[in-house]
């Protein structure tokens, strides 16, 4: 019998196994943390596991995202993760969602699960998860890594504190693994701690890290816990939640071509053309560089993250992807020019007040 080795534990038993089978857990992110969380939750028999990520597997992921195969580079993480989990345990349900968590899907998605697990790699999504969990009244297991240190806690559990109680300042910078670097083992250990919290919550055993922040240091094995109180913040209404995150997602993402052209003489602004060299029309802007989208990730050194970066492509689609990439690499002052080069050309042609060399 598959679960025999845990059923014989007095803390688990048949009753505990039943609880595991009825539990529905959503893992947000299918990267390094998920690579430890997913297999162990699947192995333990969590009845339904969702995994949401729109990323594709890259070779540099394999140093820590150990559930993926070398011959699967280029494939969808969520789909590969599902395959791995189902081949480990075909008796459970796995929902792979090839999407990004956002203002529109967060609340409907959270309503379908009991526990959310934050396996993300950026602060913005942690606040989104936190707020959606408050609205849907669900707990989430927080985990994060900075080089050789990790943090774990459980938020919004049985009226416990939230992520905002711990870190009220939403608009700060923090490096993720791509920027700061990480060993696979470090992110794996923190992911295991998160899986451990999920299992304690489902089985109702042990002490859940609610109201406590655990910080673990891989280099010296120092473990610290900090007590945390709920600061009684009123959750957003659903309408305000959508407005806030839609607002952040859209306005931060795009700038109108008109507004972009107002900045051409601003020395704190840089324009990036992410089209291929041969694409026309060329827009001759004084403070501009051409970096084709496919080469963007190799050229961060050319960019100053203190400057405001305005990205354009032909019509405004590729530039949005470029903005996403830049934001994931700690370039926070980035926007995509709506309408792209075609719109820019149109405005320059009709507006004699704009002079472009």
């Amino acid at each position, binding site marked *: 019998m598959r679960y025999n080795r845990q059923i014989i534990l007095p803390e688990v038993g048949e009753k505990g196994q039943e609880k595991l089978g009825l539990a529905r857990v959503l893992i947000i992110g299918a990267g390094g943390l998920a690579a430890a969380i997913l297999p162990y939750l699947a192995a333990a028999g969590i009845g339904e596991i969702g995994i949401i990520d729109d990323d594709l597997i890259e070779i540099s992921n394999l140093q820590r995202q150990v559930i993926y195969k070398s011959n699967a580079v280029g494939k969808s993480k969520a789909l590969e993760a599902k395959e791995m989990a189902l081949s480990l345990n075909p008796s459970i349900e796995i929902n792979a969602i090839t999407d990004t968590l956002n203002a529109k899907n967060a609340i409907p998605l959270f309503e379908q699960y009991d526990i959310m697990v934050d396996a993300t790699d950026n602060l913005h999504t942690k606040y989104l998860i936190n707020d959606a969990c408050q609205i849907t009244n669900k707990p989430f297991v927080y985990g*994060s890594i900075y*080089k050789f*240190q990790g943090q774990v806690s459980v938020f919004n559990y049985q009226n416990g504190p939230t992520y905002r109680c711990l870190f009220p300042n939403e608009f*700060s910078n923090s490096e*993720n*693994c791509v920027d700061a670097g990480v060993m696979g083992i470090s*992110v794996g250990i923190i992911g295991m701690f998160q899986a451990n919290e999920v299992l304690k919550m489902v089985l109702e055993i042990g002490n859940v890290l609610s109201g406590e922040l655990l*910080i673990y240091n891989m280099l010296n094995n120092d473990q610290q816990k900090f007590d945390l109180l709920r600061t009684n913040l009123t959750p957003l209404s659903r309408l305000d939640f959508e407005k806030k995150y839609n607002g952040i997602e859209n306005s931060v993402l795009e700038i109108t071509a008109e507004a972009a052209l107002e900045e051409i003489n601003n020395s704190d602004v840089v324009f990036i053309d992410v089209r291929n060299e041969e694409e026309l029309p060329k827009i001759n802007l004084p403070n501009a560089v051409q970096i084709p989208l496919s080469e963007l990730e190799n050229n961060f050194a050319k960019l100053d993250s203190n400057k405001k970066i305005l990205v354009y492509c032909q019509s405004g689609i590729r530039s949005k992807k470029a903005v996403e990439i830049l934001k994931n690499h700690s370039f926070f002052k980035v926007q995509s020019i709506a309408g792209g080069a075609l719109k820019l050309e149109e405005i320059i042609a009709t507006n004699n007040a704009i002079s472009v060399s």
Partner: protein
Amino acid sequence: MLSVKYFGAVAEKTKVAEENFSLSNQSLQELVDELEQKYDLTSLSYSIAVNQKMVQDKNSYMLMSNDVVALLPPFAGG
């Protein structure tokens, strides 16, 4: 005597994980202001704990002998 522990990106700036300071009659906020100046921490965001408990109101907390202060920035990797 009190000790201050640094984590994550804060420790990168201070270049040490822990330091001791002699106690003077100051609030937690005053100590934090000194550290921000000393290590140029103003661009970083972090929360503060004293003796393993997160502290929200730094102004009204007066530091005492043997206090252990911790500067905790949010981590983002995953």
